[in-house]
């Protein structure tokens, strides 16, 4: 894969970045009302903190379903780019969804994995990524050929630009630190869903 030539071959070689910082960098690059699905816990807390967008969906429970929800939005709205933001613990819980995404060859879908090797919100217990599992390699094995670790912040921005411009599916692995999130998502599911549907133009 030529696009991956300048990206680290494994998780160990990727720079440890900060979740809130790269979430802000991601959101700053969204110019076409792209949909973003924030996985449970600190992943969507930092998405919330990075600035409210009507095209953001913040999960509150149903751990592991950010990728399936994003795939559903992508199927319903093939003209819109859709991004799933998910943690390492969450994607490990629903790793089969990577194979489903690959089998659908979903062009308008990108997956960003925030991997700090821990179940941070429950007290920092280790996930298996800290013990050798490599999400990018697993995604490639599932059939998402365009999967890469972001070497650093500028590489992350390049990969995001690429995923917004070219056909997917994409998976971008981000090794992140264990900083606390910058804010906490307001836990109001009907409001989140209603604003998201208006943001997608489904409700007027």
């Amino acid at each position: 894969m030529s696009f991956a030539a300048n990206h680290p071959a494994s998780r160990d070689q990727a720079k440890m970045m900060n979740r809130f910082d790269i979430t802000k960098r991601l959101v700053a690059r969204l110019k076409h009302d792209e949909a973003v699905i924030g996985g449970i816990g600190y992943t969507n807390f930092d998405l919330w903190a990075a600035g409210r967008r009507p095209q953001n969906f913040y999960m509150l429970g149903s751990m592991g379903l950010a990728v399936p929800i994003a795939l559903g939005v992508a199927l319903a709205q093939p003209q819109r780019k859709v991004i799933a933001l998910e943690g390492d613990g969450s994607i490990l819980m629903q790793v089969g969804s990577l194979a489903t995404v690959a089998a659908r060859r979903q062009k308008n879908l990108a997956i960003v994995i925030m991997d700090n090797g821990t179940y941070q919100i429950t007290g920092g217990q280790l996930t298996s990524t800290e013990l050798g599992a490599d999400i990018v390699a697993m995604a490639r094995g599932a059939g998402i050929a365009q999967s890469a670790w972001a070497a650093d912040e500028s590489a992350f921005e390049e990969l995001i630009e690429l995923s917004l411009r070219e056909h997917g599916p994409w998976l971008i692995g981000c090794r992140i630190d264990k900083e606390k999130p910058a804010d906490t998502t307001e836990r109001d599911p009907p409001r989140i869903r209603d604003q998201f549907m208006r943001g997608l133009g489904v409700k007027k």
Partner: protein
Amino acid sequence: MDAEAPGAWHEIVCDVLKRHQVKLVTYVPDNVLRPLIEAVHADPFFTAFSCAREEEAVGIVSGASMGGMRGIVLMQTSGFATLPNAIASLAVPFQIPVLMMVSERGTLGEFNIGQSLVARTMRPVLQALAVEHHTMTRLDEVEFIIDRSITQAIATQAPCVFILSPLLTGGKVFAK
């Protein structure tokens, strides 16, 4: 076919889904569901594909629903038993009209003790979560139940579960 005679259960299900613009069908396969799965794959109106887990299938239909595309999840009873968290933390609180159809194992001639035990969790879960559900036992009630229930699910923004009784489908017959 005689215009007065009802079709097979899966033909009726297909027709009602089409009438209500339910285009997306995600499933974890089941032998009893096979004719319905084959029918939706054969009809270009539907986008149909299998998922690794039932939770995933519910997530996909939830996302599609919010994106403006209606969908239904097909599974068997043991698959439903993996869903309480997804229903309780996604479909119900976010008010998403996820349609689900469950092929009922575990009763009326079940031969696998695991199936008969897990099947007993289904209705208590649905009752605990106050999720609308109907068991279809006769061919002449299939159209009415699904047609009315889809309308209600959309109007009230609530999930709905259709249970296919062996009385309707013939179920899975003890092979040995």
